[in-house]
């Protein structure tokens, strides 16, 4: 009995469960009754045509809608077995668990070093040595350290777009999140930089749960373990990548995969 309970807990750890989630912006019904669980330590790609609610769904996971008065959210989002829309949950703690990689890289107006150190600093780490180690560790992790080692104290805005995006990833990782969210994180990058970011995502899934919104089916084919296909605010189909691509259950999914609409 006891072991079943602990097993169940084990299964729920580090996963995201969304139950009966509805999102409205003004009177528009953007997300309709979303029920989804996202497996841990894997890459889940959310795909679908523009305006289907992919980004809105991603943003509900770190409560980025909080400050927009027009947005109304009902339903539950469990992260590590905790409903993040519960009144007792602190929004800062939720966001700290989530590393977000935005569509376009947005370095902070400070040096490369300070960009990565910013997160740990605002979360209360003061010791220079620890901050130094953290910065070097994550710059190395994203493969930027060798490229910038002589100029970590120069402005981050002088890096190329691809380097900036990797810096943003390092910055997000430095707050030591458990989940990585990517919102079309490669759409502004050249093919070479895209490849580097994709390789990083594959490396990241060993330690983190990665959830990506992607516009390109080819990217999803390359890196996804699980797929979620959305259309007009609803989840049409979701499942493991192999099954999803080779044997889609719904007609709409087959049409989307064959490129009849995008």
């Amino acid at each position, binding site marked *: 009995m006891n072991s079943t309970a602990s097993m169940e807990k084990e299964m729920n750890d580090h996963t995201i469960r969304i139950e009966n989630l509805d999102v409205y912006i003004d009177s528009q019904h953007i997300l309709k009754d979303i029920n989804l669980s996202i497996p841990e330590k894997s890459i889940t790609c959310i795909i679908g045509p523009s305006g289907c609610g992919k980004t809105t769904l991603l943003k509900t996971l*770190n409560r*980025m809608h909080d*400050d927009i008065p027009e947005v109304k959210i009902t339903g539950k989002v469990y992260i590590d077995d905790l409903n993040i829309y519960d009144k007792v949950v602190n929004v*800062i*703690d939720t*966001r*700290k668990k*989530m590393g*977000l990689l*935005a569509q*376009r890289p*947005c*370095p*902070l*107006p*400070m*040096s490369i070093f300070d960009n990565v150190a*910013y*997160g740990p600093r*605002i*979360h209360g780490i003061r010791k220079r040595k620890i901050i130094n180690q953290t910065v070097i560790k994550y710059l190395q992790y994203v493969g930027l350290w060798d490229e910038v080692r002589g100029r970590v104290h120069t*402005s*981050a*805005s002088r890096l190329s777009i691809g380097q900036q995006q990797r810096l*943003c990833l390092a*910055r*997000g990782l430095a*707050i030591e999140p458990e989940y990585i969210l990517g919102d079309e994180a490669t759409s502004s990058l050249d093919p070479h930089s895209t490849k580097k970011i994709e390789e990083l995502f594959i490396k990241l899934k060993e330690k983190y749960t990665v959830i990506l919104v992607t516009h390109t089916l080819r990217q999803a084919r390359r890196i996804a373990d699980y797929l979620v296909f959305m259309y007009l605010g609803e989840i049409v189909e979701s499942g493991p990548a192999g099954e999803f691509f080779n044997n889609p259950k719904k007609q709409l999914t087959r049409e989307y995969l064959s490129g009849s609409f995008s």
Partner: protein
Amino acid sequence: MRIIEYEEKVFKVIMIGAAMIILGVLLYIIGTVFFKGLPSLSWDMITKLPGGGFYLGKEGGIVNAIVGSIYIIIGSLVISLILSVPLVMYINFFLARDSMFSNIIRFALDILFGIPSIVYGAFGFALMVYLGIRASLFGGIITVGMLIMPIMMRSFDEVTRLLPRDLPDALLSLGATKYEMSKVILRQLMPGLVSAILLAVGRGIGDAATVLFTAGYTDNIPVSLNQPAATLPLAIFFQLGSPVAEVQNRAYASAVVLTVMILILSFSARYFSSKFSKNKI
């Protein structure tokens, strides 16, 4: 030669000519002021109050006007900063991008920008009469404040509009609080704010028409807000109006003081904005 090549040449000459004329005018003005003013400029001039008969060629200086101008500009700067920062934050961060209301405000500011300073002076004077205030430091501060406010608001607004929209989201997603977010945004906006301030100060400190009726003129340094205050532009005006050649030369020396103050402000504006913008996105 083909006609388009002639065209190209002609326009190139016009463009270079225009640039040269601007540079020439600047050098000519600065040259005249310094050439005429430097011989009369002395330590007494910038440290002493005007003695009796100063405007007839007797001893003294214009420290009353220097200090008066500094008082007025600092006061008006404080007033316009108190109003500018909230206004710019409101039309940029609270209203939707390019909303109707924010564009109306921008349009209103552009009109205020174009109003001649003598009109501000007259308006300030009418306001003071209505409120029963004498020509004083306070009146000067209010009126110069009105003059420089639209300049500061518009130039600060322009740099704020260029703020990357992703920056607030990037900060929030790292778990920053609103206060921590504002600190970074303010740092990003700092060069813009500094140049807006210095631009406004440069314009306000040299304006004679606004202070003519409102601040009055005195040979003393004001010690309270309701005493009249002398200003550099008016000191130049009164000395230049003197029939005594020596006093007229002192007017140019006063102009040197004012020009140097404005030059220092402009150079520091450039310095600060390049220093702060080192890490700008």
